[in-house]
């Protein structure tokens, strides 16, 4: 029952997201076709506007357009790109895996860096190491990702010439070059993420170390290291895992600038290109897919929690 309710709620959310994506074009004041075609303040050719209106179906009644949009979504169709007539779903299918790969690599980096340092900061709470790590976390958390990315290119690629400035090579073509090119954008995103993971882990470990069962373990004569490894960590990491999963979803939209800086041809850089060429169906379709993935990820976390902890279901 709880399960069905949760799924239904998510479906409702997806429908609302779809409606919002649809509504965006119609709620905006002015004629979208005209805005899409205007460049540099010059009024576009009226016949071109009319042609675009017809192509996008903007000349038909609103209800009909809305029904068409929903029907298309149900079949997995998101329309065609205005540039080369390619179906939007195929475009997304090609670009999305690259972005997901980037996010996954960034998450692995963030977890590998953030969790151990967070534990270290918690163990040395109040000490010099803790304060230093907290300071770094504050800076990397605050620094916009495009600043990190640009500075990385400036230092690592331009000044030291250790790595190239960016690009993409398919894995099948050249695995080592692929991984090399993946590292820079993944670390650029991962640094800020690692700062979040570090703070979360530190707080969670500190919280766990104050719990009664840790006192029990101490009363047994367990060493601080044993208490940390056998008692505190597993309890502390559960909330951290949740935050990481949710954050991965949020990152779907956060890779735009990184992909742009490193020329990574993922879904976000496709969207930037689409925005620049005013390719409306691609923009709306991509936005919808990303939002839907976000909803699905939230649902997955909820369901997982419900399975682990029976109290959630109540």
């Amino acid at each position, binding site marked *: 029952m709880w399960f069905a309710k949760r799924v239904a709620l998510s479906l409702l959310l997806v429908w609302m997201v779809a409606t919002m994506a649809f509504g965006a074009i119609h709620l905006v004041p002015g004629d979208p076709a005209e805005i899409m075609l205007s460049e540099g303040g010059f009024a576009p050719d009226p016949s071109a506007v009319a042609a675009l209106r017809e192509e996008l179906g903007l000349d038909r009644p609103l209800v009909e357009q809305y029904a068409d949009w929903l029907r298309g979504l149900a079949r997995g169709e998101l329309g065609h790109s205005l540039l080369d007539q390619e179906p939007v779903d195929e475009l997304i299918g090609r670009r999305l895996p690259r972005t997901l790969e980037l996010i996954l690599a960034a998450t692995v980096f963030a977890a590998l860096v953030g969790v151990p340092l967070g534990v270290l900061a918690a163990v040395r709470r109040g000490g010099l190491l803790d304060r230093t790590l907290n300071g770094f976390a504050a800076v990397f958390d605050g620094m*916009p990702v495009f*600043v990190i990315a*640009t500075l990385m290119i400036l230092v690592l690629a331009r000044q030291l010439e250790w790595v190239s400035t960016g690009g993409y090579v398919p894995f099948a073509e050249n695995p080592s070059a692929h991984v090399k090119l993946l590292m820079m954008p993944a670390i650029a995103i991962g640094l800020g993420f690692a700062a979040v993971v570090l703070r979360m882990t530190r707080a969670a470990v500190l919280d766990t170390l104050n719990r009664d069962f840790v006192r029990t373990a101490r009363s047994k004569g*367990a060493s601080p290291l*044993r208490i940390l490894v*056998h008692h505190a960590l597993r309890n502390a990491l559960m909330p951290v895992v949740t935050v990481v999963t949710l954050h991965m979803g949020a990152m779907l939209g956060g890779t735009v600038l990184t992909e742009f800086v490193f020329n990574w041809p993922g879904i976000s850089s496709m969207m930037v290109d689409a925005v620049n060429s005013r390719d409306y169906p691609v*923009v709306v379709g991509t936005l919808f897919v*990303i939002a839907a993935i976000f909803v699905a990820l939230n649902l997955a976390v909820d369901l997982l929690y419900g399975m682990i902890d029976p109290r959630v279901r109540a």
Partner: protein
Amino acid sequence: MRRFPWWAAGFVALSIIVAILVPWLGLHDPYTIATGRQFEAPSWTHPLGRDELGRDVLSRLLWGSRTSLSVALASAVSGCVLGVLLGMIGGFLRGPVEVVILRGTDALLCFPPLLLALLAVTLLGVGYSTLIPLMALVFLPSFVRIAYASVLSIRSQDYVEAMRVLGAGRIRVLMGTILPNIAGPVLVQFSLAASAAITLESGLSFIGLGVAPPTPTWGGMIGAGRSVMQHAPLQLLWPCLMLTMTIVSINMLCDGVRDMLDPQSLPMRLKRRPVLPPAPPAPAERGFQLQGLDVAIVTPGGGRILPVNDVSLAVAPGRTLALVGESGSGKSMTGLALTGLLPASAAVSAGAAWLDGEELLREGEKQARSRRGRDIAMIFQDPASSLNPVQRIGTQIEEMLRLHDAPGAPARGPRVIELLARVGIPDPARRARAWPHELSGGMRQRVMIAMAIANRPKLIIADEPTTALDVTIQAQILELLAELQRESDLALIFITHSLPVVAEMADTVAVMYAGQIVETGAVADVFAAPRHPYTRALLASAASPEGSPPQGIPGQVPAFTALPPGCRFAPRCGMRSASCEETPPALVETAAGWQSRCVRWKELA
């Protein structure tokens, strides 16, 4: 509490002042292009040099702060006002309006802000008029939630109802009660939104979709500097630095404000452990003795208090001592001090303790650790939280054996099952694989007891082991403890506030009040004719339901920071005389093994 980040506050204030005053600072025009003077090196007139179009970098940097901060402010303010309004409307009107507002903001949260911005730019073009409403929309949901939650919690409260009855209109209720209540969280959310707005705006300007050039923006400067970074890295570094500094200081300020609104007083750590003087010679008897224990705590204000003061106890093997007192009397702290489990803010500052002639309080950490669980075991009050929720109970008992087993000890698996059987858990082999949450409270406490007796300790300290349990289960647990003690000759210190339990379990009793022992002696003697007014008052109120504070004693236990100069019980004592309030009384021997801290004990005897 953490220190308030004044430097961050200062930097934010300075940025705001500069952003406001920038037109009157006498800077060069940030738009004037000087062809032929591109990338000019820093000079007196142009302290940061010129950019790729020959414009003054310093001027553009400072004008950029005006752009960033004004966009941030405008969008955060509109998001805040609109969000709070919508949240309050949703909370007050309920019904369909509520559903639309809440679900609508939920759906809004599914769109990543940057992608939403891209959509808006596609439809509306580049510029302030797109940027500000869009970001206001992005920040809306968090404000809606704060306001909504607050309205829900407040509308049910009595005083709001009372105001309604008194005829206050809805609007006045809203303004008068809700707004002051949410001011704190809204302020925190507001600064978060402002820093997020700066990040978002600069990111969009960076890729040319935010504030349109040639308006000076940090993001735009970084974007332009990117193509010439080989040539002029400083072009890139200055705006990066400004941007990062601004965002980090707003975030820090935000943390500082949050700490101020919700002070989570971090426990102070003792800077230096007190060094104890050498212990007096060990007593000849076996069993456990404690002499003159002081425990010191550092208060958040920096002061020192003694929640345990000059406490002396003794328990012979096979005997039970009950430590009785109200909460805050120092009885639990005494128990923790004996096992070296005091929190970081507390430490033993005087005294000595012996177990079979070995001194405990001066041991090194390693030695103390090997003694914990082997010679001294503890049983805690709440078995639900005292067991690790993600370990099977068998594993947790096994750990106790593993930590103290000598090499070549017999296999632990069967011994765990034996222990579970010993404490009366049915089907022990299967139960060893159970998780703590699968057991009842009584069963969990049996598991804790099994753990405590696992290594046949000489002393068990049980801190209110039955308080969290049902009355019928309490009796069973007490019986189990008494039975185990009879057969293994261990000394038991039983910390409790329940006098009937003392009468049933203990041979001797020590009554604690405000950190001191006020009376101690054989249970039969003390309970029959107490020789301290506090004990007498406790016993008089024992007939009342368990757990309630002693009745018939006016006043409260004094705070450790404001102890009376004389007898600590004097302000509440019906027998006090002038001398009671002047000098602290000593614990005097009234008969063999029967002591009282009352100068007028003879009148009671």
